[in-house]
């Protein structure tokens, strides 16, 4: 009850931090999709690219997030503003699920369908845009869903470098040993993650090919 009271009293700030949080997650997911889907397509089409691309994305995933923020801090331009840095780091983490699912989705298209398409005289581009991507769409979307859910959680850590977001409450609460403050950050973040998961999951189910 105290928590609800706190949220209500500070709703301006809660709203502001939530929007900040959404912005960090939204932009980084968008970038990860813009970079990750083409990389996934490339590694599905040319197997030689598969290992280096997925391997690199995998390695990035293993770097602890705080360490990654730290690594990027001295980089010129990036280090100037904390949110740039946070967005880059979140993008890097979101890449793996997007690349992997694009790759898996395209590879998972029935070989007979691809062969028939090729045999009919579809160009590589037509095959990709009209057949492979539409059929891989739901798998790609489930990768994006994983990326978003992970990003919502990770973005709380971005507050450690001053990038804002709901992590502000959490870090402030940790510093002040105030559970209410911690929860004021953690609960909205959890709600964001759950609704993103639910919403994208619904879209994914709807887009699944019959």
């Amino acid at each position, binding site marked *: 009850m105290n928590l609800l009271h706190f949220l209500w009293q500070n709703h301006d700030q809660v709203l502001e931090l939530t929007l900040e949080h959404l912005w960090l997650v939204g932009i980084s997911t968008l970038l990860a999709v813009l970079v990750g889907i083409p990389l996934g397509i490339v590694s599905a089409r040319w197997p030689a690219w598969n290992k280096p691309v997925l391997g690199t994305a995998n390695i990035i995933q293993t770097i602890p997030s705080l360490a990654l923020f730290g690594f990027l801090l001295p980089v010129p331009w990036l280090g100037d503003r904390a949110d740039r840095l946070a967005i880059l780091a979140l993008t890097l983490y979101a890449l793996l699920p997007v690349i992997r699912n694009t790759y898996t989705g395209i590879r998972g298209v*029935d070989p*007979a*369908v*691809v*062969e*028939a*398409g*090729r*045999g*009919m*005289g*579809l*160009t590589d581009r*037509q095959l990709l845009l*009209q*057949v492979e991507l*539409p*059929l891989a769409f739901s798998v790609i979307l489930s990768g994006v869903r994983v990326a978003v859910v992970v990003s919502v959680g990770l973005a709380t850590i971005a507050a450690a470098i001053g990038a804002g977001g709901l992590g502000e409450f959490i870090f402030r609460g940790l510093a002040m040993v105030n559970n209410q403050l911690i929860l004021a950050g953690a609960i909205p973040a959890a709600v964001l993650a759950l609704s993103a998961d639910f919403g994208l999951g619904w879209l994914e189910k709807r887009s699944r*090919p*019959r």
Partner: protein
Amino acid sequence: MLGEQNMEPTLANGPVIEFRDVAYVLPSRQSLLSGLNLQVQRGETLILLGRSGSGKTTTLKLINRLLTPSGGEVRVNGSSTTQSDVIRLRRSIGYVIQDVGLFPHYTVERNIGLVPRIEGWTAERIHLRVVELLQTVGLDATIASRYPHQLSGGQRQRVGVARALAADPAILLMDEPFGALDALTRDQLQREFLSLQQRLNKTVVFVTHDLREALRLGSRIALMDAGRLITVLSPQDFLRSKDPLAAAYVKAFGDGLESVANRGAS
């Protein structure tokens, strides 16, 4: 016309498809096909018969350049496949495979109309063509709005044939198109294929391992084994052949073949 038995090229303008000393070798150096010389004449149904791994599907895929020959050349309508525009080449050749490969996210109508659409036909012309083709392959026009997963195996294969015929190609390549169907449906589709072929008079190359099907549908049968062409015979000659492999086939399929042979070659 269909059942002509002479082995010489007909006059017309030479063979429609010609293999000249063709070899195909995998990147792993395994040879799938070697020394293949074969001519397919206009309007005939040439059967590629052989067991799995004999090179018949490889031979078929060399025609529409899903595979590129490692040696020799494949000529379609007089020009080498490696020198023609591969997309144009494929669009001028209908291709039907055992697993059909209908696009699951497209309706029957869109499946059949895909190549015409890419070729820039008007929506109305495509629609008329789809209706015409559905009739040609013996399907009800109401099926046009259905999705592939709502069709039976036989219906799916008919749609596959209709799709291959969409842009009216002169050549049709069929890779065990009836192999996955139950006996009754297969029999029906074979019968329809024969009557269709009499009307449309396409140049057909048809892969099968079923001698009965080969005898029934083929004007000539090319027997393949271990990547080599053993012999090319008319159905009647095949039954009388002294070639050990041909004789083994005839023996394996047992009696009653005489009545099957070239029933459709009238």
